[in-house]
């Protein structure tokens, strides 16, 4: 009926109810809509800021949320699922961008990124594009052996979701999320330190 992204996203979001899991189809539908908006936001953000400034993915996801969802019609559940999609999008965007930069070796774009919770598997506060790619690779490896854990990490690092929210999105208990999280961190740190300085 209408093709305005905000209406469509709001509709999807506010239609979520009942059990936790967002079905694949819904998530797939949201992804491109959110991707567009986040890419636009990231771009405008980067053109605004001085070079060397740190990008905060979760702040962008939040802004995208405000832009794409009619606040009066979304609730905690809908918001949480939006953030979940936002996290995935953010990760994809950052990785794509890091690869581009890698190919060019210099140029505009973000210099460093601060992941949520000031968590940093590589031992510093901020990640440069190369470090981000390392992280991404490690995450992909993790996903092969433990898909859920990789999801937990993605949601928390790139979306800033709380333990509670992650539990909602993945439809598991908080305890499970905490365990996954704890293990994943150790695992990632281990893998990344083994990989050596990049």
């Amino acid at each position, binding site marked *: 009926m209408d093709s305005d992204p905000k209406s469509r996203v709001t509709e999807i979001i506010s239609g979520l109810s009942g059990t936790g899991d967002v079905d694949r189809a819904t998530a797939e539908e949201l992804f491109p809509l959110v991707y567009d908006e986040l890419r636009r936001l990231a771009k405008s953000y980067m053109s605004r800021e001085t070079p060397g400034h740190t990008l905060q993915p979760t702040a962008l996801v939040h802004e995208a949320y405000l832009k794409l969802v009619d606040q009066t019609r979304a609730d905690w559940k809908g918001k949480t699922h939006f953030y979940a999609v936002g996290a995935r999008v953010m990760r994809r965007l950052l990785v794509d961008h890091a690869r581009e930069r890698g190919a060019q070796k210099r140029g505009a774009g973000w210099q460093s990124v601060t992941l949520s*919770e000031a*968590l940093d598997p590589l031992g510093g506060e901020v990640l440069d594009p190369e470090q981000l790619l390392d992280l991404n690779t490690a995450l992909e490896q993790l996903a*092969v052996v433990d898909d859920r854990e990789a999801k937990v990490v993605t949601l928390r690092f790139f979306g800033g979701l709380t333990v509670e929210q992650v539990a909602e999105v993945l439809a598991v208990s908080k305890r499970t999320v905490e365990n996954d999280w*704890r293990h994943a961190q150790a695992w990632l740190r281990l893998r990344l330190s083994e990989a050596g300085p990049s």
Partner: protein
Amino acid sequence: MKTNRHRRAKEVFLAACELPVDGRSSYLDEACAGDDDLRHEVDALLEIDCTTPDPSDGRRPPERIGNFRLLQRLGEGGMGEVWEAEQERPVRRRVAFKLIKWGMDTKEVLARFESERQALALMNHPNIAKAYEAGSTDEGRPFFAMEYVRGVPVTEYCDAQRLSTQERLTLFVQVCEGVQHAHQKGIIHRDIKPSNILVTVEDGRPVPKIIDFGVAKATSQRLTERTLFTELGQWIGTPEYMSPEQAELTGLDVDTRSDVYSLGVVLYELLAGTQPFDAKELRTAGFDEMRRRIREDEPQRPSTRVSSLGAASQLAAERRRTDIQGLARTLRGDLDWIVMKALEKDQTRRYGSPSDLAADVGRFLCDEPVNASPPSTAYRIRKFIRRHRVGVVAGGVVIVALVSGVVGTAIGFVKARHEAEAARKVSELLVGVFADLDPAVQVSQVTSTTSVLDRGVERIRSELSDQPLVRARLLDTVGTAYGNLGQFERAKPLLDEALRLREEHLGEPAAAVADSCVSLGWLAFRTADFGEALVLFGRALSIYEQALGPDHWAVAATLGSIGTVIWRAGDYDEARGFFDRSLNLFQAIGKEDDPVVVRTTLPYANMLMDMAEYQAALPLLEQALSLYEERFGPNNAAVSGIVLDIGRCYHETLRYEEARRFYERALEIQERTLGPDHFSLMYPLTKLAMLDRRDKQYEEADARFKRALVLGERALGPDHPDLVWTLGPYALLMLNRGDVEEAHATLDRALRIAEEAHGPYHVDVARILELFGFHYYQQGEYDEALRWYRRGLEIREKIFGVGHVATGWNLYDQSCILVLNGDAESALATLHRALDVGWANARIFDDDDFDSLKGDPDFETILEEVRVRL
């Protein structure tokens, strides 16, 4: 394969984490027996796990911190986590151990902590969970050890124990005392909410204990943007309990009175069973909207809230060992005012301290007079104007009649008559001129009267230049007469001049000045300039109180006028308050059977009809009619307005035959006394046209609607809100005749006018939306129809409250549509909702929309219920 290994390593790792460090190697020996790779992996993971300083909230804190041994985690909050711990030295006891999250400005946090720690150690009060020790871990992470309170949140406790209102108040006083103690030590809590007030039982008595003191202040002081974003998943503070100044987020102005506000919210919840701002609504709005609401929106008084929530209040009442009426009655009055005073947006108007609040509650419990009182009328009017943002209508005067049109005229006539008599007594010079204006002689033609009035004005000005007060009185009279004839441009300058003269020669506290204010107030009202009208009436009220004393009918009448304006502006709660005050005063001074009381009862009755409370409205109307008939005779223009309103009452309760009789009588009187071109006729004409349409007399209906619109537009201009009352039903007629496009256009116009004049939350807007819905229903587009009806329902629920009977018809119509749309289940559910709000009407028996439901046992139950109620 790899997955299994991974999973195994994870299992072992996590299990090992749960064990004390020294116990791990033996466990690992066992678990990894024979599998060196596994052991290697887990060892490496554990090493990294322990060595990395991890500020995240998933990280388990060390076993022992100082003299405390951590046992089990109790919970996680926005600020950190709480553990049950065992203190070993200097004394062995159980404590609540709170570990603070890594803040953004750690050094600042620690510094602030230190100064708080001293004060916390000094706090010693039975209602505050004692803080034992505070410090920081080796990693520099701050912690608190506190008295371990085994209890439940105060609201839960009171509900579970079904404590009465009195019992709850007694507990609440203790809470206030605790907070007061802390304030005296220089600590502001900032996060007072039920989950921070736990009730435990000591010696068989319930004792509330406040926890989390000082913590909030120490760590959430500076809210940088970055903090907001990362914490957005978890809201900072708890919005439902946050004071307006806290919602500003600057951190300025937050003082002990912010705690008083939060205590007010807790009190509200203890008494009424809900929070002043609906938690769900607050949280689903956007961030900025949420803050705006806390800062600007006025909550309903607890008694009103209880009354308007309907079924939801039933549970609350039960938990207080009473019923809804009983609860509302207990809350109404003093308790309302105590709570509202604690919830004032303006800090200076709140209780200055928790002990002031506790003292007033104490007075209430002892049946002593409390300090809190309903705010003065002037203050309320100012607040009302601010809240509804009613502004001054720019530019020209749009001519309007009050309510169903003739009432104002009737009142004006009454006044004009009295004034004319007085005028005649006062000045014999002008007897010749004014004789023609005597309403005892029916005015039959507008034009001739106007010219007579014009001449009169000239003579007033020239012949009475040396008698300013007489002149003023006559100008007032003539101005009002102009107003009654719809000549508002001519009226205003005269009334302004009269006011000026009186102000000059009598000074402010003179009743005559107030009279002028009232005349001007009505003029402003008629031009839909509600703000101006309120200001004028407010001024008149205070002057009358001063000049004539507070027990005078003029005071009571002005209260009624204020109520009328507020009602038309759409605030039913406030309006009712004024109407009740007015009527109470009339009764107190023994004037409840004087026709002047009609000035209040007539708009009051109309308001009640808006609220679908027809049974309450009718007696008021009938009393008004008999009073006026007695005073003015049965065929006076003043009477016609009341007759019209009675007709409306019958009409809206579906007694069409009686309605028609009354409407016809009203029309007849008006045509005779006011002439065929007076704008007041638009109201009876519209009503009759509505009945004609119903009788399928489309030609008559069309003619009447057209005539009504012509008269209305000519006098009121094309955008006056009263036109909506004609346009809506006219559109319905167009639908019946198949003029779909025109109907749509007319409804659009009506909606636009209503929204512009009243804003989106007004009953007239809801009515139009429902007409749209009806339109689609007739077209068979049921989904669309429902959409419109739902919007209308939203507005009604917002204005009248969920569960109010005024939402009944909307729900009924929705169920008709749902049935036709094939959704019998929802239709029945909606009918039940309609019944729940108190709706009942015989229409359901012959409504053929429900044919498919006949025989369904649920439907039969509903029919039976309706039968019982009628």
